[in-house]
């Protein structure tokens, strides 16, 4: 099992935010679906998100 994630969602402990992984890592507010930030994957190593 690797930590490579694609199409995976993680709920924050307080249940208010959700982290989505796909072409990028995106954090959204569940209440209004507002995107807080988005981080693209590293094109050299798809397992990484850009630092």
């Amino acid at each position: 099992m690797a930590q490579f994630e694609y199409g995976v969602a993680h709920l924050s402990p307080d249940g208010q935010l959700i982290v989505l992984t796909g072409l990028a890592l995106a954090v959204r507010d569940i209440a209004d679906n507002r995107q807080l930030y988005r981080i693209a994957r590293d094109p050299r190593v798809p397992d990484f998100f850009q630092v």
Partner: protein
Amino acid sequence: MIISPDQQWLASGGQGQVTIRRFSDGAVVQVLKGREGADHLVAFSPDSRYLAVAANTSSGSILVGAPTFPAWEPVTLYRVADGRQVQSFQGHNEGAYGLAYSPTGDYLATFGASTDDRTLRLWRVSPHHPFEPFFWLGGGLTLLLVAVGRWIWQRRVPRS
């Protein structure tokens, strides 16, 4: 990928490294170098102060042309605040397939990744004591315990 219980941090394990970000804005606060080319599992302590990292170097890795790794792969505990390695212990042959903290933060459970090491190990991780193996269950020992337990249970049930 995992969010710390206090929601301050977001940790992601990848090939060769682990990244800790500030969850509020995604800013990188620590980049921890792991086993080059290996996949990494991560788990936050319940107080969010420590991050346990375990590499998976088994042949089941997603890597193509994966390098040859040493047989035993350690599990390492880092302090999130400064990325300092706090402790490390010899984990599993070819690394771990599973990694989890106990709710109290006193123990860390790991599961072996290789076909030669399908063991579940429980480690005491109190910050006041060095990592030490608490116990581990190998496949043979597990079967023995189940067999003994079943034998005792059958003796306790009155036959009609």
